[in-house]
């Protein structure tokens, strides 16, 4: 076991938690990410491998699957796979093993920061952040959108829990944008 101490995307030892009104904003560092892109002619094989890994059909455009191990649709035959960091720090390697050259897999865990927003009134917050039609979401939706110039993923677990995954180097700016919108809307 190595002896290097990780820091959070916000540059701290512990994840940041902010509460404003009815919403709690939590920096989540417990998610491992890997991109999974089917190779040409191996799309079915790749989908089957991914299905086995995430325990369900890979999501269609605009959607994410639910559960500890899940996936977000990212492009034609491309998904972002999410799994608990503690058990899947080597998520990319696990997927490579499963895919058996049917897909190109790239470790993405630390390319991103993740913030979870929970509570009532999330649609009010997100309508001040991005064009995604969050108010109509019921759970299971996911999209790529832009928040304060930052390309982000939005994943709706249910209307009271939405995850924002954004570029790690701009975690501070993204966190600030989320907090400002919470204070503005709630």
């Amino acid at each position, binding site marked *: 076991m190595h002896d290097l101490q990780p820091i959070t995307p916000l540059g701290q030892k512990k994840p940041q938690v902010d509460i404003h009104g009815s919403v709690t904003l939590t920096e989540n560092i417990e998610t491992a990410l890997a991109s999974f892109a089917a190779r040409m002619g191996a799309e079915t094989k790749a989908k089957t491998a991914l299905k086995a890994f995430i325990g369900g059909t890979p999501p269609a455009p605009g959607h994410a699957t639910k559960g500890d191990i899940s996936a977000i649709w990212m492009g034609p035959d491309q998904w972002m796979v999410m799994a608990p960091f503690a058990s899947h720090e080597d998520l990319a390697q696990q997927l490579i093993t499963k895919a058996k050259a049917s897909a*190109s897999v790239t470790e993405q865990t630390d*390319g991103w920061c993740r913030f979870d927003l929970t509570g009532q009134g999330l649609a009010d917050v997100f309508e001040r952040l991005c064009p995604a039609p969050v108010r109509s979401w019921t759970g299971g939706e996911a999209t790529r959108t832009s928040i304060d110039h930052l390309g982000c993923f939005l994943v709706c677990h249910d209307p009271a829990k939405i995850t924002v995954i954004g570029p790690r180097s701009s975690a501070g700016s993204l966190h600030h944008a989320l907090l400002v919108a919470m*204070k503005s809307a709630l």
Partner: protein
Amino acid sequence: MTQKNRLDGGLIDRSETWSFKFDGKWMKGHKGDTLASALLANDVRLMGRSFKYHRPRGPLTAGSEEPNAIVELRDGARKEPNTRATTAELFDGLTANSQNRWPSLKWDVMAINDRFSSFLSAGFYYKTFMWPAAFWEKIYEPIIRKAAGLGTLDHRPDPDSYDKGFLHCDLLIIGAGPTGLAAALTAGRAGGQVIIADEDFVLGGRLNAETFVVGEGAGSDWAASTVAELASMDNVRVMPRTTIIGAFDHGIYGAVERVSDHLATPEDGKPRQILWRIYSKQAVLAAGATERPIGFHMNDRPGIMLAGAMRAYANRWAATPAHEVAIFTNNDDGHRTALDLQAKGVKIAGVVDTRANAPQSDMYRTIAGGQITNTQGRLGLTCVEVTLSDDTTQTLTCGALGVSGGWNPNVHMTCHQRGRPEWRDDIAAFAPAGTLPPGLHVAGAAMGEFTTQAALTSGMDAAVSALGAIGIKAKAQDLPLAEDAPVSITPFWHVQGAKRAWLDQQNDVTAKDVVLAHKENFTSVEHLKRYTTLGMATDQGKTSNMSGLAIMAEVAGKQIPEVGTTMFRPPYTPTAIGVLAGRSRDADFRPVRKTPSHTWAEEHGAVFVEVGMWLRAQWFPRPGETSWRQSVDREVAQTRKSVGICDVTTLGKIDVQGPDAAAFLNKIYCNPFAKVPVGKVRYGLMLREDGIAMDDGTAARMAEDHFVVTTTTANAVAVYRHMEFVRQCLFPDMDVQLISTTEAWAQFSVAGPNARKLLQKVVDDDHDISNEAFPYMGCGEITVSGGLRARLFRISFSGELAYEIAVPTRYGDALIRKMVEAGKEFDVVVYGTEALGVMRIEKGHAAGNELNGTTTAQNLGMGRMVNKKKDSIGSTLSEREGLNQEGDLRLVGFKPVDANDPVPAGSHLMTKGTTVDAAHDQGYVTSACYSPNLGHHIGIGYLKAGDTRLGEIVRLVSPLTGLDHDVEVVSAHFIDPEGERLRA
């Protein structure tokens, strides 16, 4: 001062009495007042001065179309000039000041302009300031600049924040008068997702300004109960204080919500205003209509206002501009005003109706076929002169005059995508027609349906039809009965022979100016507008354009439809720049990107520089160092002497995978990549399609089907975009997958003779990184610090023995701390971008300054890298004759002949003995620095035929700064030209 002009009734809340200050004088008003209504209630008619002639003016309207009552609202940093008193919602403590006057509103020195009005007619400055030409810059322009503008800014930053947001709906309803409310009720009850927006703070539109009965009760009561029902529906969003400012593509509308304008200061964390982008599937324009005035001599005195506005002040705000008023009208609407005001106890001096068959009333005196031909009262109306049909004149004493020339449908949104309204004789106005923005339906007064009953019905019908278009079935509603009197109007634009009949009251454009424009052949409406400035003020001519067109038609001998209208453009009403910027201002103008070692760098006093959006450490000053050069020289010297560490995470990293990964890179780079062995890195140069150098970097082959490509920091996004374009559009048959991993890995350069020794203390023992096992340009996956996955690349930007080591970003902070600790025995130094730059210039490596979008591989001295045995992007066009001339620019180095001379980047090179001018230019210095290793300044840059001129002494000049001294042309590789260090 008491509220001497306050009437009974109205929709104001008399239980809340508020104080406000206008031009230093405190007055009282009530909740629900606007600044204008409160001022009128306090017997203040004079509220502003016009732009050109500084004529005293009072409110013409009771809404956002106001040209006259323009004030500076609030004070201090929140001061907001050019704000309409007619829409400014009163709050306790509100402060307002009149503007465009000195020393006071009543006594304004610049009113002298009015005396010279015959010299200041339309187009005067086009004619006047032509000569002498030399006067323009020094005399005319400063004077015009001083005279220009209305209110003044505070010049301190706006302390409030603004927000932006995005809304989605099935149906957007623009306007919440009877039409909009009927539409919303219909759509809301049908279950559609509805947004209804209105610029007013009380919804109901004219229902709140009239005394009509709707159903069993007052129109305002029906409006209030309907709004309450709508607000109770989950599927309806009611947005008061929200102006739809424009109709854009694909059903998108812009809206400005004034969240906190009615408060002294916004609540903590809340924005002042929000700019909403509304994505609608369908929209109903229920924007109503704007009353238009009639032009007559001296029709601009404070107290002269639109009759509908006078009615609104009396009925909604219980305020009257005077206790004795007269009316001037060409339609039945003017008579309503007389009846309503009389019912409130205001004396009616008479109703002057231009129609010979005007309706008579026993409630007040009607002068049928009469015209108002003059008015009196310097700072406020005292009487009007009426010319009767038999040409005799009479004087009516009155403190206010209500004028009604008919109503213009608010067609603006229907024209924002170049639609043109059409003239309708029955209402003597332009109404929406032709191609409307897709999905937009128009109803009510905006469509020329001027009765309340027609408004309700057409609003309902529009909602049914709009929802039907998207498959939502809406039922017809059982709407209440309302007023349904037919429109009776005889067009009457201006009183013939009037000398000073004001059309555009803000910009002081008269009927005479329109005639003059025609005489001088500015007959097109667009020319008329620009020549006279008609409709170019903050109100955009909402009350004046129509009269201008009518008069132009008259003098041109045309019909109004032949003259046409000018183009309506967004925004519908003045919009603050602040709300367009939203949150993107000051430090939040754009996101900040921080490197993994940012915290460590801060702890060690780094001076940061913005590179793109990245904050990178520029240098790390140590105690005793008084200039940046000392810090940078130390960092360079220590790195070359022992070992230095630099965070290079910002370089772009692109993961390229797939069976065709190598073939793909062979297309992207101009030099060969097909046969790079696994475990090796290759330097690559990529060209644009046109053969110009695009970016350089390295590609490391981690596996047969896996490369990691690095790009320069600045071009990371551009290169990734380029590669995606190539993959998706040029070579879609290649089996290759791309994804950025720039941020996923914390990457550090470890450079210097002791780099390997340092790394050996960090890299786990089972990975042999000796020179033999891990030679120059090697790469591989390793583990560090007891098992953490990492990547190691033996590449060098500094020219030293160097590596780049990468770990997952979360461990980057720990890794630099560990390497600094491990490097203590070597006196390791952490260096910033300045030292990085110095070392790459010493080594002669090209960077952004050299890859400047105009240079080729040939220019860079890399012409032979463009492999002709394969086809790569840009390869063919790089062979263009013009890019391959003898004597072309070549990258070389320069050192000063006198070692004390600087070599500034940007300086130009001249052959000795030639004239210093562009024709004799030989090239320029692209990058320069002081080399602590050589003890003098050095530079690299492009020189014509530079590769053949080594040893030549050339002049380095900068005519702008007076620089002129000799430099020697040398190889660009100042340090270790044979590359022995990096292979050590």
